[in-house]
């Protein structure tokens, strides 16, 4: 299809009444892209709900599932940082590590950062963070640590750049699945998870108090 | 301040009282007013129909007749918008006339915004004991920012109470030739406007554009509604005794 490519590019240049951009201009544009300058970023303040310590997570998950009348069966991301959590502390919580499959009802993942601007979670795909965990199960639980909360999307991009190249998928998640396609009525749980539950782990207070985790 | 009145084709033909109300208000505001005779139309019908050539010819006639004045005042947001906002666009590829259009544009004003924003009018002396609602004509609102000014002056009219329409800013369906090219769609739009006006409980509806008013009055009368329709200038100038509401006989 390279003939199509050449024709399309030629058509663009013809419409703009010029030929190919000269090398100097191309360099300028590449520099502009590389600088990834921020445009105006709104000044928002958003509240984030705070919870306990990592040790309290299994308890919090079990309580949430019980309150929602959900089976205590979780698929957890292979994410190594979840190894620190003592899931065995709650033996009635059945856990499995891996990607999500058709029958899974509850998943639990970390996230890359949480964006305070709009209360949005940023999750990236990878060997330890399969994307299906974010979309297949009915309920998605996300563990956010306090030091993961950033102010804006641009902060998220900056952190991602220090991390390496682009992942296959970046999911910005702001609330559970919803649709307004029927008479403009908002219904949750169209195709993605019906429930999104965020557990914010803020152990900084305890650390400064000298208490062990 | 040498001020000229651009009467508009609709006011000239259908309802001269609006023109005289404008004269009265402008003279009360201290303007020395003239009405150049060589005026007919602003060119909008041709312009909106894609006939740039005729629109330009008519526009040049307007420039010839009016560019000598300090200000030109129009009792219609749509004609004022045409001249102020669209003449420069009309002559964008005409280097001979463009400078004239650009110099002229800032001196053309919709009537009520001129009274309030330029003449500094805060109140009027009129009295009209009516429950009134107001329709924001599209061009005046979106092209010229006419919103607060009519309300400010209406607030000073003795005995007048204003009930806002939830859809005050929604188009009434006139749109110049639109209302006769697409009468079914126009009918739906003006019916919605009618329903809101009736629902507001108002005894009268006012606006600053005669096109909208003819459309709205025509619909209200077709359904036998006893709601008075007038141009805001008639009320502000205290001239409601001089002419019946739009669509009623003397």
């Amino acid at each position, binding site marked *: 299809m390279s003939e*199509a490519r050449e024709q*399309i*590019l030629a*058509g*663009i240049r013809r*419409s*703009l009444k010029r030929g190919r951009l000269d090398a100097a201009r*191309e360099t300028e*544009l590449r520099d502009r892209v590389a600088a990834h300058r*921020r*445009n*105006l970023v709104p000044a928002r303040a958003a509240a984030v709900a705070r919870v306990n310590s990592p040790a309290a997570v299994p308890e919090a998950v079990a309580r949430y599932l019980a309150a929602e009348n959900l089976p205590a069966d979780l698929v957890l991301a292979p994410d190594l940082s979840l190894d620190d959590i003592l899931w065995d502390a709650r033996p009635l919580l059945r856990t499995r590590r891996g990607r*999500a499959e*058709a029958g899974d009802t509850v998943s639990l993942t970390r996230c890359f950062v949480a964006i305070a601007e*709009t209360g949005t979670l940023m999750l990236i795909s990878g060997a330890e963070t*399969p994307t*299906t965990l974010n*979309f297949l199960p009915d309920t998605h639980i996300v563990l956010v640590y306090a030091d993961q909360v950033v102010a804006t999307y*641009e902060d998220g991009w900056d952190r991602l750049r220090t991390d390496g190249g*682009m*992942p*296959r*998928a970046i999911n910005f998640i*702001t609330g559970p699945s919803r*649709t307004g*396609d029927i008479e403009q009525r908002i*219904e949750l749980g*169209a*195709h*993605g998870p019906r429930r999104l539950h965020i557990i914010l782990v803020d152990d900084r207070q305890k650390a400064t108090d000298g208490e062990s985790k | 301040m040498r001020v000229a009145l651009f009467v508009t*084709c609709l006011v*000239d033909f259908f309802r*001269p009282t609006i023109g*005289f109300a404008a004269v009265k208000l402008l003279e009360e505001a201290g303007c020395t007013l*003239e*009405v150049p*005779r060589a005026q007919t139309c602003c060119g909008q019908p*041709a312009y909106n*129909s*894609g*006939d740039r050539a*005729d629109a330009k*010819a008519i526009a040049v*006639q307007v420039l010839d007749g009016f560019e000598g004045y300090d200000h030109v005042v129009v009792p219609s947001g749509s004609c004022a918008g045409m001249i102020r906002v669209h003449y420069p666009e009309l002559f964008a590829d005409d280097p001979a006339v463009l400078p004239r259009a650009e110099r002229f544009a800032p001196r053309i004003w919709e009537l009520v915004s001129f009274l309030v924003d330029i003449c500094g009018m805060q109140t009027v002396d009129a009295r009209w004991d009516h429950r009134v609602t107001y329709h924001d004509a599209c061009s005046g609102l*979106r*092209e010229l920012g006419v919103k607060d000014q009519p309300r400010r002056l209406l607030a000073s009219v003795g005995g007048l109470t204003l009930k806002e329409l939830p859809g005050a800013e929604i188009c009434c369906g006139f749109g110049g030739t639109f*209302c006769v*090219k697409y*009468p*079914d*769609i126009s009918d739906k*739009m*003006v019916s919605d406007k009618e329903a809101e006006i009736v629902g507001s409980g108002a005894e009268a509806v006012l606006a600053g554009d005669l096109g909208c008013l003819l459309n709205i009055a*025509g*619909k209200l*009368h077709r359904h036998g509604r006893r709601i008075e329709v007038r141009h805001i200038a008639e009320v502000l100038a205290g001239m409601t005794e001089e002419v*019946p509401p739009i*669509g*009623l*006989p003397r």
Partner: protein
Amino acid sequence: MLATSRAFEANARAGLANDNLQRALALMRTGFPQRRRLAVERLPEFEVLREIAKSIKDHTLEHLDFYLELFEENVLASGGQVHWARSPDEACAAVLAICRSVDARIVTKGKSMIAEEVGLNERLEKNGITTVETDLGEYIIQLRHEPPSHLIAPAIHLMKEQVAETFRAEHLALDPERSLAEARQLCDEARAVLRPRFLAADVGITGANFLVASTGSSIIVTNEGNGDLTQTLPRVHIVMTSLEKLVPTLEDATTLLRLLARSATGQEFSSYTTVSTGPRRPGDLDGPEQYHVVLLDNGRSALLGGEFQDMLRCIRCSACMNHCPVYAAIGGHAYGWVYSGPMGAVLTPSLIGVAEAGHLPNASTFCGQCESVCPVKIPLPKMMRHWREREFAEKLNPPVYRAGLSLWAWVAKRPALYHALVELASRALGWLGRGRGRFRTLPLANGWTAVRDLPAPEGRSFHSLWAERRNGGTVK
């Protein structure tokens, strides 16, 4: 997709007479504008962001060839492929070839207006490939064999009873006695019916709200999560998109994303905004093995550098149609093709020709609401007027109309004659109407009097009265 825009007048009349549609439009008319307004009020920087967004898009369009090449470079670098398509036929052929190469039987689709534009589903079905729309609105209209009637809510023209009727007629394996009275039940049923299709799909096709040149990424914005299931589960992900979706950097995309959801539904951000770059990486447990971008031109490159270039800034938010009183009266199907409302009125003639779509830019009062809510400040009425200029130049208007305009202009350029005629006419009509003050009917004015009375003139023209009252004093 086959266009019926030529039949706009009849289509519009049908829309006006359709009770279900009118009820649905009444819901829309209060819903979207109200929610957008609240979102805008909560973001003080909104107006400034609009201006920035406009300049990002303008910059990109001015250098579109550069950014397309950069985009392609980065897609290839991340393991994806790019297919350039000049026409709908080339786009369909590219998709078909990819599907055949993996023996695809079932294709799931996220919402893609480009796919509608090129008639993709039909082409795939003709070649023995089942296509399953997964966006709830698209799924509903797929079952009903209807085109979409709105940019982001394709089934907005339907009431829930109609959806229930369709589900009963199509989901025959389910209990006929089941209740489908509530939207909740309809959503749950769609979720259950479509889940196995997601899992069975060989190829997933999505659109793209944006393409990012600096990373070779595509971005989709959804609330349902269907786009994500469509692109994550199958072996192959195809992005069907067009040239003008490009933006230079992630930061540029972010600025536009801040405006998109707020302008569309009043949300600060959609439930799911996903940035996809290439196929799965080594070690990934899920994700597609292949990532393809089909880049459609279909007339867009020809709009650059001309009087319609601004239309290429469109980010498909639907704010214009949500605020348009004409759309709110007749619904989206009346426009007769893929794109409706004000953006459809401007874009459609450029894609399928002004002879076919000529009514669309004419059916507007130029009230200006669309332009005032467009997040990228497209001067929609101005461009509709440009179409009218083209039509006038090509003499596509009805002859009676042109004659009337010509006559009006001819007289208007002769003030003395004009004044004499106006005085004469206002006296005549004023006298005729003196009894009732208005006319129920009037020869030559049937377009007006069919639906409303015509108020009678006062009976004298302003200029004659002015001349009299001033006794020839200051009259020029």
